[in-house]
C-alpha cells in the first residue's frame, strides 16, 4: 500500500495532535508513574553526591529582607498556636537513636550557642525570599544528644496537624541547618512556625518543618507530609 504525502500529513498530524490534546493538563499516562519514581530515585542519588557541607548559601548583595512578604503556610485550618493551658509548656524533644534523649524548653534552646544567618528561602513554587534566621545549629543539638552514627535519617515532627518531613542526616548536619526561634531579629511569630522551626537553605521550603515538637533520629527514612503526596522526598537545593 502506498501512502501519499497528503494522507501521511493528515494521519500523522492528527495522531500527534490528538495525543497532545489527550495529554495536555493531565498527569500523563499512568504507566509513566513508575518511570518517574525511578528518575526521582536517580536524581536523589545525584543530589546527595553533590551535597557539600562547604557549599553555603548567601543572599545576593543588595537584596532586601522579605519581611511581611514572606508567605505563611501551615496545613491546619487556622494558624497553629501552642496552647500552654491545654498541653503544658512547649518543649522540643530530641529522641530516637541518641545516647541522651533531650527535652528542651524555649529558654534552654536559647541558651545554646546561637547562629544568625541571612539566607535565601527556596520555595518549591519557584519564589525565593531573603530572611534572617536565629537559632541553634542542628549539628550542635545532635552532638548534645549523642546521636548514634547509624542514624542516617532524621524526622522533624510538628504540632501543625500531622505535618512532618524526614531528612537525610547529611543535609541535617549542614552548618546552615538551624532550629530557628528568631526571624529578622525578632522572636518567631505564630505565622512562621513559633515557638521553633527547622530552617535550612539546603532544602526546599516544604522540607523545613514549622511548629516543631520532635526531632527523631532514625535508621530509615520516614517520608513526609508533602513527600507522601508526590513531591520529591529529597527536595534539596
Amino acid at each position, binding site marked *: 500500500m502506498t501512502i501519499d*504525502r497528503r494522507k*501521511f*500529513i493528515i494521519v*500523522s498530524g492528527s495522531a500527534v495532535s490528538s495525543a*497532545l490534546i489527550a*495529554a*495536555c*493538563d*493531565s*498527569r*500523563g499516562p499512568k504507566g509513566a508513574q513508575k*518511570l*518517574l*519514581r*525511578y*528518575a*526521582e530515585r*536517580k*536524581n536523589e542519588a545525584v*543530589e546527595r553526591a*553533590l*551535597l*557539600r557541607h562547604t*557549599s*553555603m*548559601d*548567601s543572599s*545576593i548583595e543588595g*537584596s*532586601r*529582607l*522579605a*519581611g*511581611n*512578604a*514572606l*508567605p505563611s503556610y501551615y496545613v491546619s485550618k487556622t494558624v497553629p498556636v501552642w496552647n500552654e493551658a491545654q498541653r503544658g509548656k512547649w518543649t522540643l524533644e530530641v529522641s530516637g537513636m541518641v545516647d541522651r534523649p533531650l527535652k528542651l524548653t524555649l529558654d534552654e534552646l536559647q541558651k545554646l550557642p546561637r547562629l544568625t544567618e541571612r539566607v*535565601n*528561602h*527556596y*520555595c*518549591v*513554587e*519557584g*519564589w*525565593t*525570599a*531573603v530572611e534572617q534566621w536565629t537559632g541553634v545549629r542542628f549539628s550542635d543539638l545532635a552532638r548534645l544528644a549523642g546521636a548514634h552514627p547509624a542514624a542516617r535519617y532524621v524526622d522533624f515532627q510538628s504540632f501543625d496537624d500531622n505535618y512532618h518531613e524526614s531528612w537525610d542526616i547529611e543535609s541535617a548536619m549542614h552548618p546552615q541547618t538551624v532550629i530557628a526561634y528568631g526571624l529578622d531579629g525578632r522572636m518567631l511569630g505564630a505565622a512562621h512556625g513559633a515557638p521553633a522551626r527547622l530552617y535550612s*537553605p*539546603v532544602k526546599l521550603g516544604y522540607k523545613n518543618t514549622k511548629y516543631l515538637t520532635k526531632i527523631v533520629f532514625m535508621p530509615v527514612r520516614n517520608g513526609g507530609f*508533602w513527600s507522601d*503526596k*508526590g*513531591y*520529591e522526598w529529597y527536595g*534539596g*537545593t
Partner: protein
Amino acid sequence: MKSTRSHHPLVRITHWVNAIALTIMVGSGLRIFNAYPAFARKGETFCCYPWEHKPIPRAFTFGGWLAGARNWHFAMMWVLVINGLIYLGFIYLHGEWRDVVPRKSFPRDAWAMLTYYLFIRERHPVQGKYNALQRGTYFILPIIGAVAVITGIAIWKPVQLQWLTDLMGGYAWARYWHFMAMVVLVALSMIHIFMVFTVDPQALKSITIGGYDESKSPEARNARPFYHLFRRPEPDAATIAAHPSLTPTDSFETARRPSRDDTPEQKP
C-alpha cells in the same frame, strides 16, 4: 538516487525524541512556572517581565499539578540532555555538522532568502541541503538548548552549585534566563513547524521515514509560505538543468500534484 536531503536514521530518531521531550519539558515547565508566575523575590519587584503574576493558560501546561509537573520535568530533562548529546556527537563524527554550521556566505545567503520570502527576489535561491535561514536556526537551536539546560541546573541546585547560579545574576535571574531560553526555543520551533507545513511538507516524511523527492523541493516548486495560493512563474532553464525531472512538459501543476501514472523514470 538517494537525495542529499534525506536524513540519517539517527538524526530522524533524535529529532522525534527531542520533539517529544521538548514538548513535555515546556508543558511541565509552564505548570511549574504557574505555581509562582513571576520572577521577583518576595518583597521586591522585577524589572523585566511585563506579565508578573499572570499565569499561563492551563491548556499549555502539562503534569496536572505542581508535583506532577516537577516529576515529569526532572525525569524528562535526562532524556532531553542525553538525546541532545547523542545528536551532537553523531553530527560531529558523521559530518552532518557541515550542513548546519553557517558558512562565510551566511549574510549574503540569508539576505537572498529573506528577499525571496518578501517577494523582492523572484526565484528561490539554491543553497544546498539547508538554506541560510535554516542553517542559522539549526545552528542556534542546540546553543539555546544548552542555555536552557545550564540555567535549569542553576535553579535546580542554587546552593550546591551557587557559583553557577551567581554567574547568571542569582536565582531570580537564572529562572528568568531559563524562561527566556524556553521562549526562544518555542518561537523557533513554531516557525520551524509553520515552514514545514507551508513550504516543504515533504520534509515531514523525510524526517520520519526518510527519502526526499528533489523534484518537489521548495527550490523546484519555487515555494514561499502558502505558495500554492500564488501564481507561479514557469521554471527557467537553470532550474530545469538543476532538477532534470522538471522536463519542460512537466508543468508545475503536475509537479505539485503527481498522479499515479507519472512517468515511471521519476520514481527510483
